[in-house]
């Protein structure tokens, strides 16, 4: 009797935990279905290519195109990734191979605190502190140096306002450093010390060990970390919303204000008074969800493969 009651209770507990676990699946699929359903009117009206390759975003004429927002998202994400990746790997190398023990945990914690600072703080700090510095000092300086070069110089044309793609990318790059750095650090630590020691034994310098043993061995893990950072950068909202200006145009230089998918959503969602307007915003959200989900899934596959090695 007692035993049977125990079995029954066990079954109940099992079901509750199982339902909770399946909630994760339900939420993920639910998000996709809801975003898909809400964007149907816009899909029917503009189609896929007609939406993605159209630059016009005119709520009055009810014509909506995603190109400027998508380009803004891609530029800020990739530019910040280019800035952040070498630095994050450098930090990981410093923590795993160079720093004395007491510094390891201090610097490790400090870098992880960078990830803990909320994005709204990054945005506010970017708007009030970084943007003026960029507009008055750094951007004019870059214009008078790199800006004079052919081709690359084009990227730095225009009036330095501080509220532009360049500032947004810098802030994003600071925000995503910790994600790549902490995963790269974990992957570096997985390198078997026998491999490293044999390299040292034949006279390799520390840098050669890092470059020729540690980095190749942890390639997959580092790639996973970069993918994770990219996924974060694509979806970052508040930090970018402060310093990008939400201007619906295809930027000609890094010093132009622009819009990203997330910034558009944050600024216009509550203003959308017509169904097709809201539906187009949902279409943008769906595209963002698919992009970041795919990239995060790829990153996760890399990380799982790296673990299995």
């Amino acid at each position, binding site marked *: 009797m007692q035993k049977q009651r*125990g079995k029954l*209770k066990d079954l109940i*507990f*099992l079901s509750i*935990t199982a*339902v909770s*676990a*399946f*909630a*994760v*699946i339900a*939420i*993920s699929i639910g998000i996709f279905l809801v*975003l898909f359903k*809400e964007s149907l009117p816009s899909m029917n009206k503009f189609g896929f290519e007609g939406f993605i390759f159209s630059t016009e975003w005119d709520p009055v004429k009810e014509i909506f195109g995603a190109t400027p927002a998508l380009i803004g998202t891609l530029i800020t994400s990739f530019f910040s990734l280019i800035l952040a990746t*070498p*630095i994050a790997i*450098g*930090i990981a*190398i*410093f923590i795993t*191979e*160079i*720093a004395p023990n007491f510094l390891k945990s201090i*610097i490790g914690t*400090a*870098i992880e*605190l*960078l990830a*803990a*600072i*909320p*994005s*709204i*703080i990054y945005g*506010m*700090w970017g*708007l009030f502190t970084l943007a003026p510095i960029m507009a008055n000092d750094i951007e004019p300086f870059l214009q008078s140096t790199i800006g004079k070069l052919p081709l690359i110089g084009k990227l730095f044309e225009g009036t330095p306002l501080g509220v532009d793609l360049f500032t947004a990318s810098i802030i994003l790059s600071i925000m995503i450093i910790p994600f790549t750095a902490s995963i790269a650090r974990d992957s570096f630590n997985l390198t078997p010390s026998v491999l490293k020691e044999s390299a040292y034994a034949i006279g390799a310098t*520390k840098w*050669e060990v890092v470059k020729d043993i540690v980095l190749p061995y942890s390639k997959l893990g580092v790639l996973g970390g970069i993918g*994770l950072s990219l*996924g974060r950068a*694509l*979806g*970052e*909202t*508040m930090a970018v919303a*402060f310093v990008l200006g939400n201007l619906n145009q295809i930027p000609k230089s890094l010093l132009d204000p622009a819009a990203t998918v997330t910034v558009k*959503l*944050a600024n216009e*969602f509550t203003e959308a008074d017509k169904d097709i307007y809201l539906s187009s*915003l949902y279409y943008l*959200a769906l595209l963002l*969800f698919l992009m*970041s*989900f795919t990239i*995060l*899934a790829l990153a*996760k596959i890399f990380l*799982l493969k790296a673990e299995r090695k």
Partner: protein
Amino acid sequence: MILNKRKIISSIALFICFLTACWGIFWLSFILVDVIRHGLSGINPDLFLKDPAPPGEEGGGLRNAFVGHFLITLFATLIGVPIGILGGTFLAEYGRKYNISKIISTLADIMVSVPAIIIGAFIYAIIVKPFGHFSGWAGAIALGIIMIPTVVRTTENMLSLIPWTLREAAFALGAPYYKVIIQVVYRGAATGILTGIILAIARVTGEAAPLLFTAFNNNYFSLNMSQPIASLTVTIFQYAMGPYEEWHAQAWGAALIITLFILFATITGRLLIKRRYKE
């Protein structure tokens, strides 16, 4: 001679790695010092005790936003944490042999990083639109959903760290599995789970994007979760983008409080876990 060249290259490369670490520390201190410097000038008793003054007028505070933010976070925790812990329990205990558990676990890892604003849009469609208005509940549910994957994953990890022999000892006494989990496994993993909860709370406390079109904002003091309710993060966004100096000062004050809370929670969480799992 060749050896020297290699040694020099090595030193330069390692020095550059050192510089990258300085780069990270530089930004962290820059941001923190700046938030503290501006924030301190914005903090006064009125900030906590008074509700906002009409735009452009002197005085007033953010009492409504502090209370609203607390309520939203509290209910988000009440929604997200139990589901997260129970879900993590399934993955680490009952379901550990099934492939579906691995899939859920991977999916949760992905969902941790899915843009928060997407969750906001999702909740807008399923809660705000059908009810016809913004509400504190919508905000709390949005944040709760953001918490679930994080808590699921930490719980799963922490439960897996409990040695299997401990469970077998309890089984041998004739205890059913649910009792083993609740009385043995949970007890062993309590610190770890607590850390997961603290870190999840720290994460959602700073979220603004999912609240923008769920809880929205409210200029008046309100405890009613079924109406729009103010939150610190949305207020910071609104005030910082606004034209008044007074608003900026208050936004900085609120930013400082949020930052301190999150850093404190994060560091506490890390210390807890370090003390518990020190080898």
